[in-house]
């Protein structure tokens, strides 16, 4: 039994043709984000003032200590340099794995002292995927210098597509998990749906939010009960859980990315910025590759015969 609505499920899409330009643009944006984040003064501040505790990493404690005491200073130089090379697409085959390891170490120190999943959660897996992909075939120095060598390599039909689809799956994991984290245990779901968390954020952080910087005064009394907080909380769960649709079909990607960005824009206004630009970067992989000018139009006929599962 088959249903046309699931024809473009992720397991099929992985085998479709892709766009080298789309993958290259994603590589460049990811590199820019890594450059921006690794230059954050937060790392300097954490070195002198510390930060949060009660965070756990997969690394043995001696490695965490070594990173914090010695390696951070070097990593603060290595990561931005390698990220520039990634942006330029120069020696990407060697640069990407080195950048992945140094990024993982630098943000280990970051996470231990700053217990929020930004920006590393959005970056580390896509960066790992970049290590195995042909992301520097287009818009890169590699293509410029070693162009002929690249062309003679045996490029698989879906070489530009599978990395993009795996990043889409990562996008699904991030938001679907965030939704799940809010609904379990079910016994406390009612509390979440009452909107207390959203109201607390707006109430406590109003004077440090863009709503205050932009409009100065609150729109209404944020300290009294209001159904709007409940609606916002329920909507956020629906939006987060709805991203799972991406695994089954890419037909609704535009609506999903719009809803996710709208949610982040609201959070941005209430004093929780940062997620929007990360969602935008991963969102590049939700764009239909056909919209990029290097998409192989004629060879795509092959994809139409793909089975559903």
């Amino acid at each position: 039994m088959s249903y046309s609505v699931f024809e473009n499920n992720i397991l099929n899409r992985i085998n479709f043709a892709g766009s080298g330009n789309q993958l290259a643009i994603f590589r460049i944006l990811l590199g820019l984000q890594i450059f921006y984040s690794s230059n954050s003064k937060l790392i300097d501040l954490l070195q002198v003032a510390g930060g949060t505790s009660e965070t756990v990493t997969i690394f043995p404690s001696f490695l965490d200590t070594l990173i914090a005491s010695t390696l951070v200073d070097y990593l603060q130089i290595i990561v931005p340099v390698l990220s520039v090379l990634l942006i330029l697409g120069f020696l990407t085959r060697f640069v990407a794995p080195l950048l992945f390891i140094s990024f993982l170490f630098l943000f280990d120190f970051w996470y231990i002292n700053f217990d929020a999943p930004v920006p590393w959660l959005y970056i580390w897996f896509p960066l790992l995927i970049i290590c195995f992909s042909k992301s520097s075939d287009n818009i890169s120095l590699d293509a410029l210098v070693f162009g002929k060598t690249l062309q003679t390599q045996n490029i698989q039909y879906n070489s530009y597509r599978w990395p993009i689809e795996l990043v889409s799956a990562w996008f699904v994991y991030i938001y679907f998990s965030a939704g799940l984290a809010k609904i379990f245990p079910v016994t406390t779901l009612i509390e979440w749906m009452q909107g207390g968390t959203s109201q607390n954020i707006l109430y406590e952080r109003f004077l440090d939010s863009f709503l205050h910087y932009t409009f100065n005064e609150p729109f209404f009394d944020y300290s009294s009960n209001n159904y709007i907080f409940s609606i916002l909380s329920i909507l956020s769960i629906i939006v987060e859980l709805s991203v799972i649709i991406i695994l089954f079909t890419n037909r609704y990607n535009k609506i999903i990315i719009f809803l996710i960005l709208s949610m982040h824009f609201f959070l941005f206004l209430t004093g929780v910025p940062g997620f929007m630009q990360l969602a935008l970067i991963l969102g590049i992989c939700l764009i239909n590759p056909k919209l990029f000018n290097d998409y192989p139009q004629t060879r795509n006929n092959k994809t139409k015969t793909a089975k559903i599962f």
Partner: protein
Amino acid sequence: MNSKYKILDKFKYLADLIYALLIFFILSNLIKTNTLPSFFEGSFKIKLFYSLHFLALVLISFLLSKSLKKRDSIIRKIYSKSKKLNIPNNVKLIIIIVFVGNFICVLLGKTVYPFSNVGMFSNRSYFDSDSKSKIIYRLKYYYFEENKPKILDVRKEGFYFLSDKLGLGYTHEYTFSTTFHNKGKKENFDYLLNSLVDAQIDTLWVGVQSVNFETRKVTFNPDICDAITLNTDERYYGKVYIPNYQIQKCYEL
């Protein structure tokens, strides 16, 4: 009628996937409820809660195993399709490792860097409007410009296009850490003051900004002693660091 059957067919088609998700949800609910140790000495409610969960778990597992035996089982198809995916083998191995790591984190509701349950804002908080004050006080640093007090809105400085005194590199993560996590530490204050050298600010004072949600008015009180009085542990993320020169000056007044 037809469309109704079509929808039912679709659910049939996805049956084992739905069963697997339900098992995951039940397990997740059990683990995160975190009252298992009190099962034997717990109340009837707790015993009923666990009994129903275990019963549902057994029943759905039975249905899943039955469904998996069918040739058109969607999980079997996903498995065989995944094996044949046209991607490098080492990437397949990485996907399995990352999936297992994240799956465990999501199930347990924990983050073990770099694996995560993405549980930001999942800690529910009840907002009791009756016990909440209509006025929120925020202790903020300020400086004098042309003999007038000017608030240093550190969070605003985290955005390059809105930044007035700090520059590139002072990202929103930095401003969050300095405004909330580290606000009570002297090292944090010293770092901030050093960052303002280029902006020709060498002294920061602590004042009180407040918002009255009832009247919707925002005010700023630069009185250095009021800030000291209002600097209590009850403030959001605790006390803010007040420099010694402010405390001394307040005592002198």
